[in-house]
């Protein structure tokens, strides 16, 4: 309502016209609505004066947070156990493919969807598919969803327990050593690859169909479209070795990488899988490769250690109003680092198209035990 200004009679203290008295009363009466900053004392209100001051439900967190929830898949194993087949997530390269092209495109983007018994589930609330806003009343399938407003901020965080990296093709480490470490020449390289895990978002249906999950910066269904957007596995696919032929990564293949500076990658969790060495002398067999984790068989000369907890998080500002129904984790790989000397940009690529066994290519599966995901939606207004 703003300040109320009255005509003051004091100090004249004489006879006052009725119209002036009425004007003062009307000024007060007319200001009975629309209280604003001018009317409220500095720091005069307390939290209880505001709507959403207290948690209305277990998920509604009050003034600053619109909604928050957490979910874990409940898949827990004893050390020494093997994960189920559905908890194994394969690299993009698959040397069991009979054709020259050893790429399985389906492996480029895989839902982390195993449930508490290690079986695949597409249901919300199971695996890493979390229903945003909780379930609708009376339903164990449909999510409430949350109406995102422009300016809201979503904090998504997750954790996966990398149980084991299992090289899929090779019965011998030599396959990887000869191609990636190469004790016989100066073609040494660094064997550090990672599987990457990231969240995708469903703004399309309250049942959370896998077909409806996209990047937060997706041009049609996303809610954070402002450039530079979020990188996905399609950014930086590079045919290693050009289908089996010898190629120079400076001029082919790897230069297709996506520079880090071009898109956001803070939403990726890097799960390291292998390390290697060409050895201290040019002697066959002096080279070694080891995997980063194997909780099934335990540490050894070729295994660094047991299970690894790999976490990630991202903060996303909503720039397009959408109803967010669910969030799910995905995995891809293998991702490597490379520096493009032509463009002078550092970046990453996804390994692709190893054509024959002898041409190498890292083919393996990431075994994931437990996985969890949570989110916090901060209110844009702060109330």
């Amino acid at each position, binding site marked *: 309502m703003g300040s109320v200004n009255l005509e003051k009679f004091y100090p004249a203290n004489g006879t006052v016209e009725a119209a002036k008295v009425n004007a003062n009363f009307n000024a007060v009466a007319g200001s009975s609505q629309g209280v604003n900053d001018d009317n409220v*004392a500095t720091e005069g209100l307390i939290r209880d*004066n505001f709507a959403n001051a207290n948690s209305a439900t277990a998920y509604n967190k009050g003034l600053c947070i619109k909604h928050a929830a957490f979910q874990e898949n409940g898949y827990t194993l004893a050390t020494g156990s093997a994960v189920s087949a559905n908890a194994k997530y394969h690299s993009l390269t698959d040397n069991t493919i009979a054709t020259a092209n050893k790429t399985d495109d389906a492996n480029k983007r895989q839902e982390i969807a195993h449930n508490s018994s290690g079986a695949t589930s597409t249901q919300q609330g199971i695996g890493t598919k979390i229903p945003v806003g909780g379930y609708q009343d009376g339903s164990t399938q449909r999510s409430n969803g949350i109406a995102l407003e422009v300016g809201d901020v979503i904090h998504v965080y997750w954790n996966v327990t990398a149980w084991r990296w299992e090289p899929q093709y090779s019965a011998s480490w030599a396959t990887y050593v000869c191609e990636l470490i190469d004790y016989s020449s100066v073609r040494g*390289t660094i064997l550090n690859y990672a599987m990457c895990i990231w969240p995708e978002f469903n703004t399309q249906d309250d049942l959370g169909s896998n077909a409806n999950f996209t990047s937060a910066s997706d041009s049609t269904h996303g809610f954070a479209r402002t450039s530079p957007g979020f990188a996905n596995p399609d950014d930086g696919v590079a045919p290693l070795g050009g289908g089996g032929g010898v190629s120079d990564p400076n001029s082919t293949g790897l230069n297709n990488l996506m520079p880090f*500076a071009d898109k956001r990658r803070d939403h990726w969790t890097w799960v390291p899988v292998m390390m290697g060495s060409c050895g201290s*002398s040019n002697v066959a067999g002096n080279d070694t490769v080891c995997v980063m984790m194997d909780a099934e068989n335990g540490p050894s000369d070729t295994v660094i250690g047991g299970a690894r907890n790999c976490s990630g998080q991202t*903060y996303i500002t909503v720039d397009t109003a959408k109803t967010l129904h669910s969030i799910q984790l995905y995995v891809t790989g293998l991702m490597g680092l490379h520096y493009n000397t032509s463009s002078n940009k550092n970046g990453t690529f996804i390994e692709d198209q190893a054509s024959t066994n002898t041409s190498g290519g890292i083919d393996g599966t990431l075994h994931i035990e437990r996985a969890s995901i949570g989110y916090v939606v901060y209110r844009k207004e702060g109330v």
Partner: protein
Amino acid sequence: MPYRFTKADIISGSIVQSREFDNAIGNYVDVMNGGMDRDNMPYGGVVSASCDGGLFQNIAIFDNINPIDTDLQPDGNYVTLTPNRLGRLMYGYRYGEEPINAGDGWAQATSKSLECNEGMLQIDWQCAEAKTQYWSYWRNFTTDKVALKYMQWQIRVDGNNVYTSAGQYEIMNNSIHRCTIPISKGNHEISIHWRVPSQRDDTDQNQVVAVWWGGLLTMINKYR
């Protein structure tokens, strides 16, 4: 609104002095003009639509923070300029050069300023990082020297250290660091720093020690 004594009781039928109107009405107007407080407003009565944005908090997000690409140098130990077809060029920071030099010193990754209100400030820094671990990698045919490398991160507010991480030893990993501190009203500079261990006398300067990418700095100022 504190209790206020009634200063005027206008009696019906009497002649009223005009200043008594001032006293009677002014008593209420004083409250309306900036004197309303928790007792005047109903609990739960102020809804979102009635409030300015950012009434209780301000969230600042700085994304896509990366090293300057041209500052990175190649690893000469394992990667030649024409590596094998499955090889690639590992670039990063090396000993003997800025910003690492001899190691153990803090290099600045990024610095941002934020206009704060009195309250608490949550600072979230995350990035991906890679280290070439010589305890597993050996330089081609020439040495079996090993050196365990790590990265540490530090958060500073106006130059004061408010958070220092433990060493991160993985070959590739996400590095997530968070702290919450009391903050005063005004403009504050939040900077992120990193370091690697000291150079050993047998550490090869051709080695890329570490590189990071994909930084995200998020600051949440929750008002008092």
